[in-house]
């Protein structure tokens, strides 16, 4: 496949690893904030071939994992209502709320449908005028343009039975929160390539200047990730902290302007609760008040949600890179993909799931 296979070439991978080994002289801690990059690192075993001096830490880059428990419970409450067709990206179906998951609600007879695209949810609303269709609009900046478009399209089609439940999160505030934490060990970042495809990478300059950390915009294939790591290492070894774009085939400085325009039209900044971490100021987007007709929280007036997190789940510490899954006492015994206690084990991008699937006893 073009633009994929070249970036998986094994010779290139090995050359890059050798170059990293030649460039490194001391221990460094590097974080990626992108579930897709975590998945790639674990799937291809890149952490096995990197020099020991590099500690790769996985940040809160999985939107499934960081969607607040309260929001999951709200989603479950709406999905359980009669006359609702609840539509969602596939990842969310297994995420445990305080009581069960969407799968178990589906099993009890409710209409829950996986969609690949937000526009498929709009089509379902058009085809079922006598039902309420709710779309679970989760994601980072990468998915925001798609989620926003569903609202505009529903408005354009004059649909009265479509609404979205929004949980949009943003990377730069999370990065700042991690760097500002007194426990922080992260010395360099791989920035999420597809987030930057939408937003550009201009936002990272103030962060790297303030905290003196190099930030490299990185793609997802093994060659991309190793190139990103190499560039971060070179910066660290030279004691510089530039922002570098290593994913230039799809990312440019300003990002995708038409997409940003639509995001600004539909969403407004808000504080956001990150599951396992807590509230991060101005780290989310919510629907603007002029779109309240499409806001499922307004339409369904869900109250009395009392989220109950498993006391055993240490997702929060894992999402901040403070511990690894294998350091969690319930990892791979009480908490497995079949019986997940927290979101990081459920999502295929979740750090715990990635470790469980790919690396648990190697």
């Amino acid at each position, binding site marked *: 496949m073009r633009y994929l296979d070249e970036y998986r070439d094994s010779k290139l991978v090995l050359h890059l690893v050798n170059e990293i080994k030649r460039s490194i002289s001391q221990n460094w801690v590097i974080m990626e904030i992108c579930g897709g990059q975590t998945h790639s690192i674990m799937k291809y075993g890149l952490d096995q071939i990197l020099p020991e001096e590099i500690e790769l830490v996985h940040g809160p880059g999985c939107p499934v994992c960081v969607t607040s428990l309260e929001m999951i419970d709200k989603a479950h409450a709406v999905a359980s209502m009669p006359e609702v067709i609840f539509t969602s990206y596939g990842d969310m179906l297994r995420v445990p709320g305080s009581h069960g998951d969407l799968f178990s609600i589906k099993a009890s007879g409710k209409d829950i449908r996986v969609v690949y695209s937000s526009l498929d949810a709009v089509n379902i609303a058009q085809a079922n005028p006598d039902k309420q269709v709710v779309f679970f609009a989760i994601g980072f900046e990468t998915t925001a343009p798609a989620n926003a478009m569903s609202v505009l399209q529903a408005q354009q089609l004059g649909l009265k039975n479509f609404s979205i439940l929004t949980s949009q999160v943003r990377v730069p505030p999370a990065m700042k929160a991690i760097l500002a934490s007194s426990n922080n060990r992260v010395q360099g970042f791989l920035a999420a390539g*597809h987030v930057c495809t939408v937003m550009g990478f201009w936002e990272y300059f103030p962060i790297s200047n303030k905290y003196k950390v190099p930030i490299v915009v990185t793609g997802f294939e093994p060659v991309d990730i190793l190139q990103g790591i190499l560039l971060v290492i070179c910066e660290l070894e030279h004691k510089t902290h530039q922002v570098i774009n290593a994913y230039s085939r799809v990312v440019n400085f300003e990002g995708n302007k038409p997409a940003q325009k639509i995001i600004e039209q539909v969403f407004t900044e808000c504080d956001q609760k990150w599951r396992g971490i807590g509230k991060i100021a101005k780290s989310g987007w919510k629907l603007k008040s002029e779109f309240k007709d499409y806001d499922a929280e307004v339409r369904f007036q869900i109250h009395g949600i009392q989220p109950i997190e498993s006391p055993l789940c240490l997702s929060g510490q894992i999402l901040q890179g403070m511990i690894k899954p294998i350091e969690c006492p319930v990892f791979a015994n009480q908490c497995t993909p079949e019986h997940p206690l927290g979101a990081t084990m459920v999502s295929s991008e979740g750090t715990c799931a990635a470790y469980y699937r790919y690396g648990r006893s190697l």
Partner: protein
Amino acid sequence: MCLAVPGKITDIYVSNGLLMGKIDFGGVVREACLTYVPEAKLGDYTIIHVGFALNLIDEKEAFETLALLDEISKQDLLE
């Protein structure tokens, strides 16, 4: 996040007021929304995330990156 896959644009049209296209991923074809890449032309490569094109792939940049990586490989072979 975020799963976005490169594909080739094989058709462009308007549907329900949105600029849409057919994307060929190499034996699999799916419709995607091209509203965010209005400059797209037939034959362009784009990356698709949840049924939306996020950006066109810059062939020149891709070529330059691979050339750079090639340099690193040559250096490595010399070491």
